[in-house]
């Protein structure tokens, strides 16, 4: 399993629990997750925090089946079967990757509206790592 230490995971809580994005003070583009230099204008490193709505549309997706899941998600795949992972274009612009939960995988469609909610992502060192997944909006 790709080891993510507890302090390293903790530092991502603003993104994983609350979708805090970073708006470039120069060009206004919203960066998520945080970047050292704005992904859009490539010239500013000054941002202000902005709370993203968590709403967006499926840009593209893939279904992960047995053998395809990273080790930390292998148990989830074994228990629940195939699961969808999508790139979602958020209302505010950024494209983010996440699982789609609460849906029959066969019903996921490009363009479908989704929103984030808190789910268990995986458990490591007996510490539950919570974070966002997308669900149908």
């Amino acid at each position, binding site marked *: 399993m790709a080891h993510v230490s507890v302090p390293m995971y903790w530092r991502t809580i603003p993104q994983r629990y609350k979708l805090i994005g970073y708006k470039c003070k120069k060009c206004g583009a919203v960066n998520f997750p945080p970047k050292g230099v704005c992904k859009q204008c490539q010239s500013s490193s000054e941002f202000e925090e902005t709370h993203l709505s968590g709403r967006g549309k499926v840009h593209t997706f893939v279904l992960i089946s047995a053998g395809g899941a990273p080790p930390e998600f292998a148990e989830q795949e074994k228990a*629940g079967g195939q699961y969808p992972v999508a790139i979602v274009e958020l209302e505010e612009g950024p494209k983010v990757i996440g699982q789609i939960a609460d849906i029959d995988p066969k019903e996921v469609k490009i363009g479908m509206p989704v929103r984030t909610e808190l789910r268990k992502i995986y458990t490591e060192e007996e510490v539950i790592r919570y974070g966002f997944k997308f669900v149908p909006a």
Partner: protein
Amino acid sequence: MMAVGISGYGIYIPRFRIKREEYAKAWGSFSAAGVTEKSVFGFDEDALTAAAKVTRRALESVPMEADMVTRFALATTSAPYLEKLLSGTVLVSVGIPNSAFTSDHTSSTRAGTEAMLAAFEHVMATQSGKAVVAAADAPKASMWDAVEHAFGAGAAAFVISSDNLIAELEGHFSYASEHFGERFKPKDDPLVRDLNVKKFAEGSVVRNTTSAGSALLKKLGRKPEDYQHVVIQQPDARVPVTVASRLKFTDAQLASSLVSKTLGDLGAASVPVALASALDAAKAGDRIMVISYGSGAGSDALSFKVVTDKKATVRVQADTERREYIDYVKYLKIKGAIQ
């Protein structure tokens, strides 16, 4: 005295269902009286993820921004950790201020109303206070134990304040006593046990619920027929009927809240989800009597008067009808019962 009550509410029923026939096939019997099917959390859900969802839904129903909340109370008997603050996870996820006072209510199925009363005490003491109560539960026992058959999953949250009331709290009365052997977790095991001494346990249920309920009726100078809805703890679909008839409430008064028939035993979320179901059906002017029960044992009785026809966006019935049936093997897998 200033009126306090429920200003908003939100519910969540997970999508998976298992039917009683699946248990009958696997074990030869199904021991949850009156329950035809029950709800099941997905592999990536627990009391905290469900609590976060209903807290957000309850705030949206008012609508109220999360940063207004000054008190947050969480109730569950299926905490994902035996020690660690649980409410913090939900508070951060929803955006409730870090300075809000939080409490975790976890030791019996009475926890839902225990958390509600804690929230009411807060807004009675601080008029500008805004409290949120979230009850989320999926009780867990050994698959070998008959007590497991009834256990479902669900959650409900209420915004408690003195503004924009949907239902006003008219009064409450609690009753606690000493009973044992019914629904408990020994100190080194997270699974629910029950010694299955049915008549003895029923005696405790009846004594605690009817003592709290009849004392509240007397305190308010009311009769059972003054109420359009009665909400009673639902360890199965028979116990609430027994308690209702002891208190001289009718099946018709119980009908709007009898969620256990299709959702099972929701533990600490049983009364909260059932109350949300009654609120969905209630009209302005209706009265709702609420009586919880937790083994060990104790009951809280609360009386509400519905003051508007305003409803939550997501109804209990709508979330109940959104379902996907699973077989017993998939149930064992997503419950983590196969090691």
